[in-house]
């Protein structure tokens, strides 16, 4: 345990989290705590929802939401930019003003540099804040150290585009400037990673762009996994509309990178060259939760009580979204949304001395294959024997004959609208 944390800290020696720890106690309090307070770190798919649903259920609890950015850009539908279905990311960008106003959430736009679970304080660049309960939903960091040759500049040349924003725009620009006949390399890291269907949807989006604009080109997916991680039958069939443009290589884990040569090393096999390379490294919970001692034995994800999402390592700290290990619930925006509500409900119960409530969660992910065709996966989740599992005989994927694909694309557009509206108002 001790060794694990020490090695994790060493790994993150340059990270803000570790560097911030000595600050505890010195920095000034930003807002002195008057009553019961919950702090939420991260205003993404998980955090914004946890903050909102606590306030919806109990207006006597003060909720402070700390987020580094004034605007949030959604990863869901960001692959649409690569295909050219959207011209920019404005339809995927939301702010916090309405959310804060409608629910009386106090916004702090700042970078959290450390969490002290013993002192129950959060340290930001601007000062400290104390809490009664803390919800953490910071998303993911990349395990770039597992790729030889990866450095600070790599993502500027081989974008991951796995956090929506400038990285997504960079990848789109690279596709635009590539000559016809070029090769686009996409990569998928070993599972579990953020958005299991994401890399496979991205194949279709890039292929659609190539088909329409650069038909002599091709897109290769180097997948570290032995097979497509999500909806394999549906994706394979879906890619058929891009026959000749798509090449899928399973069990092709990228272990090294050479930006000068525009190539990646695939474990045990060879160098693969590309004109555009979308390198998505393997992932873990963020450095912040790592340095706060919230990461479990696997050294990657936060271990939580499956019913409440309270950390099993530190009391009164809850981890939701991609950073947590939520058993069978995949790392998706829908899961993070659902977890935010489960966590909020049990925090409100706990703070009012009421009995805690069994969780009931949902995940669904829509993936597009073309501008008007989509497929989906759905699951309902409950706790059994101390673990989050899928409710038997429920959930699953779209009809294999594709008969619903056009209809599902219409519903998917409304899904995005609803989930972003949930987060922003």
């Amino acid at each position, binding site marked *: 345990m001790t060794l694990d944390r020490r090695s994790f800290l060493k790994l993150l020696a340059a990270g803000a989290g570790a560097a911030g720890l000595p600050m505890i106690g010195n920095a000034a309090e930003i807002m002195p705590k008057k009553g019961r307070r919950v702090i939420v770190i991260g205003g993404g798919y998980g955090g914004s929802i946890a903050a909102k649903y606590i306030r919806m259920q109990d207006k006597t609890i003060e909720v402070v939401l700390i987020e580094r950015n004034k605007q949030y850009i959604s990863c869901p539908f960001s692959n649409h930019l690569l295909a050219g279905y959207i011209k920019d990311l404005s339809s995927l960008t939301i702010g916090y003003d309405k959310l804060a106003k409608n629910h009386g959430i106090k916004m702090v736009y700042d970078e959290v540099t450390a969490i002290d679970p013993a002192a129950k304080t959060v340290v930001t660049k601007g000062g400290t804040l104390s809490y009664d309960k803390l919800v953490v939903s910071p998303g993911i960091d990349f395990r770039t150290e597992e790729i030889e040759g990866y450095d600070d500049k790599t993502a500027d040349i081989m974008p991951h585009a796995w956090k929506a924003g400038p990285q997504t725009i960079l990848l789109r620009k690279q596709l635009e400037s590539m000559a016809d006949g070029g090769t686009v390399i996409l990569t998928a890291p070993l599972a579990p990673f953020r958005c299991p269907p994401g890399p496979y949807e991205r194949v279709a989006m890039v292929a659609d762009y190539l088909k329409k604009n650069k038909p002599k080109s091709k897109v290769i997916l180097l997948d570290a996994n032995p097979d497509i991680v999500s909806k394999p039958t549906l994706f394979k069939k879906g890619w058929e509309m891009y026959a000749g443009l798509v090449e899928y290589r399973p069990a092709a884990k990228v272990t090294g990178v050479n930006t000068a040569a525009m190539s990646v090393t695939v474990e045990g096999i060879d160098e693969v060259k590309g004109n555009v390379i979308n390198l998505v490294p393997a992932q873990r919970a963020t450095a912040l939760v790592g340095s706060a001692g919230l990461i479990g034995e696997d050294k990657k994800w936060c271990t939580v009580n499956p019913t409440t999402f309270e950390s099993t390592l530190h009391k009164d700290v809850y981890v939701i979204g991609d950073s947590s290990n939520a058993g069978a619930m995949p790392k998706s925006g829908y899961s993070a949304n659902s977890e935010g509500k489960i966590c909020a409900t049990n925090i409100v119960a706990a703070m009012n001395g009421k009995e805690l409530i069994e969780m*009931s969660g949902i995940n669904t992910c829509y993936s597009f294959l073309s501008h008007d065709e989509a497929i989906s996966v759905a699951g309902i989740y409950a706790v059994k024997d101390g673990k989050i599992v899928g409710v038997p005989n429920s959930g699953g994927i779209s009809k294999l004959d594709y008969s619903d694909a056009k209809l599902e694309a219409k519903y998917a557009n409304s899904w995005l609208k609803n989930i972003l509206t949930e987060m922003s108002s």
Partner: protein
Amino acid sequence: MSKKWSTLAIALGALAMSSATFAAPSPEMLANACAGCHGTNGGSAGDTMPSLAAQSEAAFVDAMMKFKSGERSSTIMGRLAKGYSDADIKAMAGFFGKQKLHIANQMVDKKKVALGAKLQEKNCSRCHLEEGKEGKDDTPVMAAQWLPYMQIQMELYASGARKMPDKMAEKVKALSKDELDALNHFYAAKK
């Protein structure tokens, strides 16, 4: 520091192991999970996704049971409904039923609304009571529902992909496409 961390971690680990008991999922716990698609408290912001707020409890239960059995065709609700017990479904029906009707901010064609008003009286009002504001048994509330959602449903009915009650089919089949669209506009415009 490491020592302090690890002792604390062990103590808490033991704490987490102790078998806690939890109350069964509340109606809110169950229903909140649906809001990612259907909107907070069932008020949909997406025009193809139906609002569930203020839906009649009986019609809600009927729809969910038919999704579950496959009697009502669906793209995704069949897969989802199978994850809930009959009691869960009743609990969610209660939750959505008591929400305020969600008035979607949508454009309707006034002429179509006027035509729909005339047509509904004769063709639909026997079952869709109070101009769609009230549900009865398996008949859902349709007032203020999203127009694109209802247009999709009408197309599914017309193609036979979604089965409609025989008595409703008699009426629907006697009407033209434009007349049916006028009816959709009429119900969408109700508040």
